């Protein structure tokens, strides 16, 4: 897909501000891990445009997003509280502390490919409920090139296509699944190429171009809202950082490769577009980055203030209707561990 050039700068500026905030939050999170504030983190460096561009297109008051463990950029774009989001990386609560029912952002998912079928199920639910005035609500399922190998992802695509469920399969092909490059992972070389086999349309897009991603996502949303069924977007991008803060990419890829990839930095691309098309001044970019830095600092403070959840919550949230057996275990835990 071609990157369209927007008519006025306001939307592009907003996108840049989002990209800058995400860049600052993401790089700060890596720092926080080094500083011992959080035990681990999965950086999205290089994938900002894919995440911001798609997240920005979605309407979280009606659509529902299903992230992996690397979607801080999407979460930020749809307004999830960043301290509540980062709580999962602080090891406070698996999945995060934000409310997925109200944010329409599903809990952070640790199982690769684990939530793709959930998106299909939710989307089928919208189909059953019927379209609103402006068409169907849409599920957006995020996953990676590695995840595309999982059986669940195939089952999800086939179910969705058979049932014509309004779901966008949004693949960030970032070149790597930990140490395994896409060419050893995705037979045929492209996840988008799989779509045709299900009779499903697909869009392949430069994932480092935020306007291209935005435009593709808008097209896909329109397709789904209209009852056209599922659609797949493959955003080609690159994971510039390590897989996670405990990974060592030097073991499996060269600095040359990384350096080459750095040349297509999504922020730089957006900056260049703003400058050439609208003559946006230096001060705007400095301001956006500074705002992002300030935001990151506020999140750091929030995280440092985040107390461990009480142990009793281990028991409280297992069921809607707790069982006597679990209540007894909670009581035993209280006696032996809390000494009360």
């Amino acid at each position, binding site marked *: 897909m071609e990157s369209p050039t927007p008519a006025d700068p306001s939307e592009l500026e907003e996108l840049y501000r989002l990209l800058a905030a995400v860049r600052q939050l993401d790089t700060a999170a890596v720092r926080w891990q080094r500083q011992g504030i959080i035990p681990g983190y999965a950086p999205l460096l290089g994938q900002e445009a894919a995440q911001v561009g798609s997240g920005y297109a979605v309407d979280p008051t009606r659509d529902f997003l299903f992230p992996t463990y690397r979607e801080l950029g999407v979460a930020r774009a749809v307004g999830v509280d960043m301290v509540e989001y980062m709580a999962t990386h602080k090891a406070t609560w698996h999945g995060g502390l934000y409310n997925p029912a109200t944010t329409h952002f599903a809990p952070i998912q640790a199982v690769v490919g684990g939530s793709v*079928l959930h998106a299909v*199920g939710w989307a089928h639910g919208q189909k059953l409920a019927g379209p609103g005035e402006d068409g169907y609500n849409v599920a957006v399922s995020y996953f990676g090139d590695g995840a595309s190998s999982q059986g669940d992802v195939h089952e999800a695509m086939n179910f969705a296509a058979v049932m014509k469920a309004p779901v966008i399969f949004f693949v960030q092909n970032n070149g790597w699944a930990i140490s395994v490059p896409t060419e050893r992972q995705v037979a045929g070389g492209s996840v988008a190429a799989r779509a045709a086999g299900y009779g499903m349309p697909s869009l392949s897009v430069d994932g480092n171009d935020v306007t291209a991603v935005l435009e593709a996502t808008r097209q896909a949303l329109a397709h789904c809202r209209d009852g056209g069924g599922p659609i797949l977007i493959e955003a080609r991008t690159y994971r510039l950082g390590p897989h996670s803060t405990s990974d060592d990419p030097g073991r499996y890829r060269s600095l040359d490769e990384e350096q080459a990839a750095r040349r297509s930095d999504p922020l730089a691309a957006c900056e260049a577009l703003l400058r050439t098309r609208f003559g946006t001044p230096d001060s705007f970019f400095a301001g956006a980055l500074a705002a992002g830095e300030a935001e990151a600092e506020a999140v750091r403070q929030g995280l440092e203030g985040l107390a461990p959840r009480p142990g009793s919550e281990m028991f409280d949230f297992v069921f809607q209707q707790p069982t006597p057996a679990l209540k007894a275990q909670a009581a035993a835990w209280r006696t032996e561990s809390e000494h009360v």
Partner: protein
Amino acid sequence: MSETLSSPLSPAAGDGPAAPAPLTLSMQGALNRALGEVLEDNPKALIFGEDVGRLGGVFRITDGLQARFGAERVFDTPLAESGILGMSVGLAMAGFHPIPEVQFDGFAYPAVNQIVSQIGRMNYRSRGALPMPVTLRVPSFGGIRAPELHGESLESLFVHVPGLKVVSPADPHQAYHLLRLAGSMPDPVIFMEPKARYWQKGPVDPADAGALEGARIARPGRHLTLIAWGAMVARCLQVAELAAEDGIEVEVLDLRWLSPIDADGLAESVSRTRRAVVVHEAPRSSGLGAEIAALVTERCFNTLKAPVERVTGFDVPYPSGDLEDEYIPNIDRILFGIQRVLEHRRG
């Protein structure tokens, strides 16, 4: 005639609607009826799975429901169990009450990831924001000379998974009421149907469920408690009948809820009888019999006259039809187990 004494079955009693008369139904019929009522009561309830629509399921448990409720509420999915269970998660997130079917026990294995990592955990993960009212029906256990992997007993696996509730009915009346209950619960329930009992008829009183929590004394007795669930309850009742001829009064406890287990009910019975035998089809090692033996021993150690005996399947793959009577606990083996417990002498 005082109101409290009037028969609940008499249409004249009280001024509520006429109570339906007790029926004679097969378990298949009872389950089918229960599902119809669950769908009637809750417009958000959906039935789906392989061949549950037009065909009505290979066991006909969903017979006629698609015709009655439409192909949006009762529908066939493609042939993929992980897909069926994963889709249930999303439907629950969208406010539906999914009632998926896995066609046979052994085909729950491909769905274990979605069941364990997702269905059992989503309410917890989301801190209660995303409840998982998923009622998973699994035709279970052996005894019908079926092909491989059509006779598995997965209760030990399910019971060990946090966030799941597990129940298995022993007769049509239980099946009807337990499924109606499970189908209205806000938590995931694995509903294990003893397929060997689908076609056995029995009385069903729709108007009088009786208590549905915990275990149920299927036959009272003084000398020993025989603990079972699913298809083994009927066999244990036969055994109790035989033992009675020898003057041994066996109490048969139908466990019903496998998770959470009714530890109080178990302890109450065994503290009276002081002896227990647990019977199941699943392999012995790490089977649910172990949990029951451990629970009973923890609670009744000082009164127990003998270690809790386990009469179970062997630690071998569920065999082909010709050998299944060798594998499933038969009357002889249960009687041997009872004998061992009765003859045990404290050292």
